[in-house]
Every structure is written in C-alpha cells, then in structure tokens.
C-alpha cells in the first residue's frame, strides 16, 4: 500500500502532462456562437452603397445565405476574399456586413478586391446593431442563415479553401435541400 502511494506524484504528473499537452493544440478563440440554432436578430441597417436605403431582416429571408462580417481594416478579410468570390461563383448568396469601417475605404476595397456580395450592410463604429446582437467581436466572421432565418453555422476567422470544400458548401447544400 505504502509503495503504491509513492507512485501517486508520478501518476498526477503524467495526468497533468497529458491535460496541458492537449491544451497546447486547442484554439482558445474557437467557440460556438451563442446564436447557433437561434433566429437572426431583428435589425434595420442602411446599405453600404446607399445610406438612404434601409434593409431589414425580412428583406433577406427566404433563401439560404451566408452573412460575412468584414472591414477594409481587417487583414484576414483580404486573405479569405478569394474564397468568398468562389462561393459566389458557386451560386451561394453572400450578404456582406461592413463592420467598423468607413464608406470610402470600403468602396476602394471592393473596387480592388472584387465584389462577391449580393448586398452590403453598413454598421460603422459607434453603432451597435446586427453585428453586436450576433456577438461579433472581430472580423472576419461568417454565419450561415437558413430559409427560416435560423443561424445554422458560424465561423470566427478565415474561410480557407479546405473549409469551403469540407464544411461550408456541404452545409449550404444541406440547408438548401432542407424542407
């Protein structure tokens, strides 16, 4: 009994080692959105290209679409832009939410990078509307909204080609086919 107890510190050490080693490969910023499987929050926001035209949630509902939060100040948005263009070419509607940006800079971004968005909403600094209600804390973030307006998938961070193939496109097709 006493001899077995001598091994206790070693066992605890190994247990702790495994626990901490696992922690090394985990991404602390990866976490599920609180809005997952909940309806898209109500909102009324102006269009990026025309401040006088207001868009509300009801205007968007009826088809499956991606909501992509972006800003010209966001380096990762440039990185993932090609994937958004590809998704648009695949026929996936991508609604942009221009976040904490300024109109001239956003226009320049779209002119230079290309415009994959069916429509862009504008939520500048100081406004807490759709992005805040969606729990957005950075850019890029991407949400998949189904026909009923329910958030079905959320990604905080870059859309990679692998993610498009393995997750995003299959998810879009799945919810497009859902009754």
């Amino acid at each position, binding site marked *: 009994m006493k001899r077995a107890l001598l091994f206790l510190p070693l066992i605890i050490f190994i247990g702790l080692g495994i626990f901490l080693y696992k922690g090394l490969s985990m991404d*602390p*910023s990866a*976490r*599920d*959105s*609180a*809005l997952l499987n909940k309806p898209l929050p109500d909102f009324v926001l102006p269009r990026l290209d025309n401040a006088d035209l207001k868009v509300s949630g009801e205007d968007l509902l009826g088809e499956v679409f991606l909501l992509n939060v972006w800003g010209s100040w966001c380096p990762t948005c440039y990185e993932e832009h090609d994937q958004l263009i590809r998704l648009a070419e695949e026929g996936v509607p991508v609604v942009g939410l221009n976040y*904490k940006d300024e109109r001239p800079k956003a226009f320049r971004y779209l002119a230079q990078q290309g415009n994959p968005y069916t429509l862009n909403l504008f939520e500048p*600094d100081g406004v*807490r509307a759709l992005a*805040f*209600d*969606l*729990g957005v*804390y*950075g850019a890029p973030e991407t949400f998949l909204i189904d026909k009923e307006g329910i958030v079905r998938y959320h990604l905080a961070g870059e859309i990679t080609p692998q993610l498009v193939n393995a997750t995003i496109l299959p998810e879009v097709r799945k919810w497009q086919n859902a009754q």
Partner: protein
Amino acid sequence: MAKRAVVLLLLFFLVPLAQAAIELYDFSSEEKRTRFHELGAELRCPKCQNQSIIDSGSASAYDMRQELYQLLEKGYTDEEVFAHLKARFGEFILYKPPVRGDTWILWFLPPFLVLIGFVILVLLARSRKKQAPASQNDSVSERQLKLKKILELDSEQSSPSNSKDSS
C-alpha cells in the same frame, strides 16, 4: 528660446490628460456608476483571452461598455444585464460561470484539493505521533544521562586526533 522649451514641456503634460478624457459616462446616479464598475469587472472581453471589459482597450470591449452603460440607464437588473449580453456573446464573457453539471469541476475541484491536502497533513501528523512515544517515555534525567555518555564518548574519540594535529 527658453519660452519655447517651457511651452513644449507643458505640452507633454497634456498627453496623459488627453488620453484619460476619452471615455465619459454621465450616470444618472452614483449607484449606477458603482454597478457599472462592478459588472464591468465581471464581464470578460470577448476579443481578449483574459481581460475584463473595463480593463481592455479593444473595440469590442468598448462596445460592451457602451451597451452596459445604456442597459444600466434603462434600469436593467444585474441578472438582466448578464442575460442580455450572454444571449449575444455566450457564456465565455461571464467570469463567474453558472454552477452546472459541466462546470462543477471548475467550482469544486480547488476546495476539494485543499481538503485533500488538509487530510494528508492530519494523517502525517498522526503517524509521527505514533512513532514518537518510545523516546518520549524517557524521563528528563534519563535523557540527560544518555547525552552525557554520548559527549564523553565523543571527547574520548576526538582528543587523541586533536593532539596529533596540534603537535
């Protein structure tokens, strides 16, 4: 020239003042101001790994401070404030997680470990007491006698070697 230097020096004093004046909240009561700081310290900034929304300088924490201020001015209770923000940013932002099946380890492991440590300490102290009595039964005079013998033996052994060294 000297005048210019003085003006320049005075300008440096403006820098911290300018930074301190960025955020102003005009609370309708002192009670709300204290609650703002209390609740703000318990809300974790969603963008940062470990900073409260009061401490963090990120844009996301700024938005949450603004929202917290407005919610308090609207008369939200503490629970309503937490529920409102949790519905948007998830449980991640709560520094005090709810006690639940999947969080009990967070709440109860530390006091449990302290308890285990205390039990081990008590057990160790007891086992020492059990080993001790044999020597404690000796009376004081007996122990002194033993000591004397040891000292005598020691001096007998060391004196010849000492004399050799000195000669």
